[in-house]
Every structure is written in C-alpha cells, then in structure tokens.
C-alpha cells in the first residue's frame, strides 16, 4: 500500500478543478431530524462545498450507485413477428466520495457476490469498474454502529483512495493505479514520521471508541440452535413487513424481475427491482403457496442471510454493522438488540 498526505485545500481543488467534468457524488445534507440531527444522503454535487466529509453516516447506503432500486436489464423491440434485444450497461464515469469503512466493506462484499462469484453480473461490474471510490475514515464511531464487531471498521481494499483527517491534512491510502494517477494531479507529499504517528493514534482512538458491540464468532451456530427460539416471535410481532431495513442496507441485494410492456405494445422491458425478504410475498411461489407467511419467519431469514448463510458461502457475515436498518426501522428492530436477545436465551 502507498501512503501519502495532502493538504485539505488540495482535495477541494481536486474536485473543483480536476474532476469538474465528471459526475461526483458525496454526502449532502437533505434534512434535519426531529431531534436536530443532520440527515445525509449520497447525492450528486457540483461544488465541493455542497458536501460534508465530516458527516456521521448517510441515511441511505451507497449501494444505489451499484445496485439501483430499479434497473432495466434489457429491452425487447418487436418487429414483424420477431424481436431484437437491446442491453445497456452503465458506463459513464462517476466519482463517489465520503464512503466510510462500513460502506467500502459493503462494496467488497457485494463484489464477492456480483463480480467474483460463479455468475458475475455485467450490470454491477460495469458500474463498479467505472466508479472511482474515495473513502474516509470515521473520526469517532457513529452513535449506533457496530462495524467493529463484524470486522468492517477497517478497510484494506475496495477503494481507489482512502482518507483520514489528521488535522490540517488528509492521510491518504492509495488503493489502485488510477487512484495514484488522480492523486498525482494535486501533488501529494510523502508521509513524515509525525504524520504516521498521528494517523496511527487517531486510528487507535477510533477503534477503541466503540460502545455498541455484539459477539459474532459463534453466531452461525447459535442461529442454527435457536431456530425455534421465542425471540423471533417477540421481534416478529413488531415487524411491519415494510422492507425499509433492506432498502437502506448497504449489502441487501435481493430483487425481483418483471416484464413491462409499453403502452403501444411495441416493446417490452425486463426490469429488476430490489425487494426485501421481509415483504409478505417474498417466498411466494407458483400456485400461490407462501413458504414464509409469518412475519417472524421472514424477519428471521433476513438475519439468517446476514449472519449465517453468507458466512457459509463466504466465511464472513454479510452485515457490516452500520445499523442503518435499525435506524430506519420504525419498530426499532436492530441487529444489536435482536442478536443479544438471542444470545441471552439460555
């Protein structure tokens, strides 16, 4: 890994001068919550001043730039009793800035499923390869995140550049060739021994600051043993089956595909729409049989995918501990409470 430092003003220059012709997306404030907190979302910006890299954490994850909620997979044009098929991948370059460790680790997990597994998705890969990712370490843990418990508090790859605020400068980890090329536009400097120290000290403080924790080492086994636990009913009874958790989650990727015919009947589109395992008909099959008619079962399976199924396939949980699901859930169903509850069942 190459390490550099840049003065803060230069980062602004990078965007306002060198990247001004590329679509840039970063954490923008969109609202203020009832309790006075700023609400941020990853949104396109024109000037660097519109975004705030000190944001706590965005309301929605950055997955939408890789797995949009709705995406046309292919278009069929009907002609003279025949048809031709048209497929478009998104190729336009985009810069995504301000992703925290949880966000980048989520992308690394999505890569495992959509870029590196047996059936890579060309839609995903095209977006991923054409997106330049600039992450930034969190100054201190967000109030409700538990990324440290699931090994998502530290990033080693999956980005082009990764920053940490060390006062008047950013400490930069360079994660790719193109990352170095872009960085070289603003004359970075080699790190001094003081800067290295300062970076390590800040990182140490961040890693030691977590209050929200769960133990996940034996979680897949606990989940297996507690399949019938009353804990599922307790939380399931609260669940609104609204899917908000999966929509904001950076790693939830389940989807449905439907055929949409145009009103002039001359073409048809295969449209992919992200779905959620908490929705009533998620496991409905032909003949209208529903494998998971109960809320508690659907809720349980969301946790099983995050903390058991994914571990079986990839040796790590799918969850990156950002607690966006817990924040979005009106019923306050959140991984730390649900999992702790389950582990207390003795």
């Amino acid at each position: 890994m190459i390490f550099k430092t840049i003065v803060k003003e230069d980062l602004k220059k990078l965007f306002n001068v060198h990247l001004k012709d590329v679509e840039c997306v970063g954490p923008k404030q969109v609202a203020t919550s009832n309790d006075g907190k700023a609400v941020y979302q990853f949104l396109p910006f024109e000037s660097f001043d519109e975004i705030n890299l000190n944001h706590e954490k965005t309301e929605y994850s950055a997955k939408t730039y890789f797995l949009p909620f709705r995406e046309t997979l292919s278009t069929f044009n009907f002609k003279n009793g025949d048809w031709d098929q048209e497929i478009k991948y998104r190729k336009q370059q985009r810069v995504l800035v301000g992703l925290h460790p949880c966000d980048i680790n989520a992308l690394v997990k999505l890569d495992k499923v959509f870029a590196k597994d047996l059936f890579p998705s060309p839609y995903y890969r095209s977006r991923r390869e054409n997106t330049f990712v600039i992450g930034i370490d969190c100054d201190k843990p967000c109030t409700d995140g538990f990324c440290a418990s699931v090994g998502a508090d530290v990033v080693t790859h999956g980005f082009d550049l990764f920053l940490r605020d060390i006062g008047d400068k950013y400490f930069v980890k360079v994660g790719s060739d193109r990352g170095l090329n872009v960085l070289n536009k603003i004359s970075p400097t080699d790190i001094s021994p003081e800067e290295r120290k300062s970076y390590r000290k800040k990182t140490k403080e961040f890693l030691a600051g977590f209050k929200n924790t769960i133990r996940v080492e034996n979680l897949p086994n606990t989940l297996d043993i507690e399949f019938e636990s009353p804990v599922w009913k307790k939380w399931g009874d609260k669940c609104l089956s609204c899917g908000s958790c999966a929509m904001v989650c950076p790693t939830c990727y389940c989807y449905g595909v439907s055929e949409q015919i145009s009103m002039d009947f001359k073409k048809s589109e295969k449209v992919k729409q992200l779905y959620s395992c908490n929705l009533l008909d998620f496991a409905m099959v032909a003949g209208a049989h529903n494998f998971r008619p109960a809320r508690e079962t659907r809720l349980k399976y969301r946790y099983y995918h995050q903390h058991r199924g994914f571990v079986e396939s990839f040796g790590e949980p799918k969850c990156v501990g950002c607690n966006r699901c817990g924040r979005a859930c009106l019923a306050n169903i959140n991984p730390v409470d649900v999992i702790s509850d389950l582990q207390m069942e003795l």
Partner: protein
Amino acid sequence: MEYLGIKPNKPKVAVFDFSGCEGCELQLVNKEDTLIDFLSAIDLRGWREASSVINDDYDIALIEGSITRDDEIKRLEKIRSHAKVLVALGSCACFGGVNQMKNVFDLKKANQEVYGDKPKETAKVKAVKDVVKVDLEIPGCPISKAEVESIIRHLAWGMPFSYPVYPVCVECKQRFTTCMFEKGLMCLGPITMAGCNAPCPAGGLGCWGCRGPAKDPNYESFFAIARERGFSTAEVNERLNFFGGFQEVNAK
C-alpha cells in the same frame, strides 16, 4: 399487434361519473406521451371527458365517484346489467372516499351546512361495492395513470393483474425520501398498499392511506409506534377515516 403470438383484446370501455371530483377521470387523460396509445388500446364506448361517443354496448365499465343519491343507485344498477366487468375507479368508488366523512354527521345538518336553505337530495355515502358487485377496484385519490395503463395491458392480453402486497414504505424508500416519522410527522405508509410511488411522503404530507390497506398489515405494531412517537389516538383515527379505506380499523 401480436405479442408472443397472442392477439390482444381491445376491450370496449365506458367511463361513468358519480359523486366525486372527477379527478380520477382527469388522471385518465393525463400522461400525454402515452395518451394516444392508451386510447388506441381500448375501444372507447362512452366517456364524457374525452369523447362524444355514447354507446350502451361495453364490456368494461369504469365507475368513478361514490354513491350518494337514490337515482345514482338506479343508474349504477343499469350499468352493472350492461357491463361484463365493473371497475371501481378511485378511492370514492372503492371506499366512499373523502365523501364518506359526511356519514359521521347528521345528514340534515350536513345538508344545511353545504346548501343552506336550498337543501338537495342526499343519502349516506356508499362505496360502489355496497350497491352492486364490483369485479376490480383501482384505489387512489387520484388513481395512478401508470397503474391503469398496466391494468389495461394485462386485460388486453388476458393476463392476471395483481397489486403490490407490500406497503408504501418500499416505494418511499426507493425514492430516497427521509421518513416522515424521522421528522416528527405522521404517515400511514407502513400499513397502506403501495403502487402510487409514494408521492405524499415525498411531498412532506405523509401518507393518508388513500389506497387502503396493504396485505396483512401489522396494525397493532403500527398503533404502538404512533403512540410511542406521541401521536394521539384521535390523530391516527382521523387519518384512517379520511378516505374510508380502513373501515372498522381504529386505534384504541
């Protein structure tokens, strides 16, 4: 035009208005980019807002508005006897809509309030299904034209149409709206059927439930959430009763 070797039907459609604001009919002539195609997919047999054609020979009757007078009952029954498929169009036709709020008042007093000393004939507001058999309900205040187009396409190819079973929250989240509750406001999104693309939370009003309940809504949990967040029973019930889609459902 054939699709996968199947010839489409061109359903004979007539539109009828009863007591309502005609907003749903207006929605039918909206979405100009596809209006011509929409009108050529159907065989229009009567529709005051879009055409001068009047014909008693139709398969599908779209009924807009609620039923509030005795003569409307007779007219509706006649339409039912002609139509193969009768569709309740919009929240008024499906549930009584905003009009049914009148039902909690004394009819005479309500009449006087609106018409003063020139009273008009009026009865308790009924949904279309309270008078005749309804084959399909298209709820919404107003209806979503995109949804109506989709229904017509399904009808044209004889394919079964189904509504989303999930609540408004899914579509709300998919358009990146910050939750109303997060801002300290109320929203019926978690218990209301999606399909409208959640315009009201996005517009800052929260959902008022114009499409009626989602499938298997979790009322108990929803009422508990509203209570915990400081909304009174009366506030919740006012919303639930607004369009009439949540008959018999009340927070306690």
